């Protein structure tokens, strides 16, 4: 049955319309979880507010389990679901640059749109920076083309790489996440902040 658009059960225009609806849900949930505030987002790196960690890992696990169960019930063909390819060098270097951008700018791209939607001017300026950054990448593409394409591993699943079944990996990830949530709750008690 799923994915609906890949199996041509819905038209391309319906797919784009549903993208808009899904985006509304995405923005709404980010905002009501507090992701429109850069000081709340940055809190995870100082322990005073760990909402990022809690929402992020709960969401990843929920979606991961959802996909595994949907596949088990035959509701979705996971072979037709896009698995991000792994280019090891650029995944690491890109991630490091993004991490620096996160702690300096206080937002990531999705959350900056969310912040801007409720009037955060710093979020709007961050978005301006995003455009400049993407533009610089595009203009100088030939300079970092080599790094961009290096160490291509295909689209492996982390469970395959570790030699585990998807289910066992999911179970272990849940255990790890529960451990992190426990540490996060302790950190919030240890570094409390009333208002920010």
């Amino acid at each position, binding site marked *: 049955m799923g994915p609906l658009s890949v199996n041509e059960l819905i038209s391309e225009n319906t797919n784009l319309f*549903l993208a808009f609806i899904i985006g509304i849900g995405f923005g*709404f*949930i980010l905002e*009501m979880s507090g992701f429109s505030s850069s000081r709340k987002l940055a809190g995870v790196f*100082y322990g005073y507010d760990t909402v990022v960690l809690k929402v992020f890992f709960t969401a990843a696990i929920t*979606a991961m389990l959802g996909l595994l169960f949907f596949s088990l019930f035959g509701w979705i063909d996971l072979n037709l679901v896009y698995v991000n390819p792994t280019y090891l060098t650029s995944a690491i270097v890109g991630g490091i640059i993004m991490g620096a951008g996160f702690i300096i700018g206080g937002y990531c791209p*999705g959350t900056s749109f969310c912040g801007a939607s409720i009037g955060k001017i710093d979020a709007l300026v961050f978005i301006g*920076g995003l455009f400049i950054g993407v533009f610089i990448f595009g203009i100088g593409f030939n300079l970092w083309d080599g790094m961009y394409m290096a160490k291509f591993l295909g689209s492996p699943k982390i469970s395959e790489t570790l030699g585990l079944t998807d289910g066992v990996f999911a179970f272990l990830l849940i255990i790890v996440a529960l451990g992190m949530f426990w540490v996060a709750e302790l950190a919030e008690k240890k570094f409390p902040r009333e208002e920010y």
Partner: protein
Amino acid sequence: MTKLNKTRKVRKYINPYLGGVLLGIVLLAANFVSGRGLGASGAIKSAVVTTMNTVAPSASEKSGFVKEFSQSHQGSPMKTWLVFEMMGVLVGGFLSGAFAGRLKFKVEHSPSITSRKRLILALTGGVLFGFGSQLGRGCTSGSALSGMAVLSLGGFVTMMAIFGTAFALAYFFRRNWI
């Protein structure tokens, strides 16, 4: 703390674990409907490619960046899944902010820095994040979160690189936040 919340008319944020489950359901819906996860930086890429095509068509034809984009997308670069999704994000964020009484123009920053400094830092962070998201083939949403949901090795690697670096650098930027 409860007294503080009573005096403010702003509604509280929802429980983060509930927020996570709801966000996970949205991500699951994206995969079920379209066979792909959520994203954000890809929409900016679309806008930048469009601008490059319009402003300097001959130069952008030669750019490997635009070529790579055109190979994976047919038609107008603005008519992509992520562009529509990000327009939805603006609407959804606005609606939630409106319901909760959080709509307000302001520069949010720590009391120990000025608004001006905050804006310079926001711009710098944005440039870095924009660049990194292209190199890493997606940002926190598209590469890390959505990648993790489909168990992509690259998604987990990028997630660890993003959060690891931010944690490692947190000490040096603490005055901007605490």
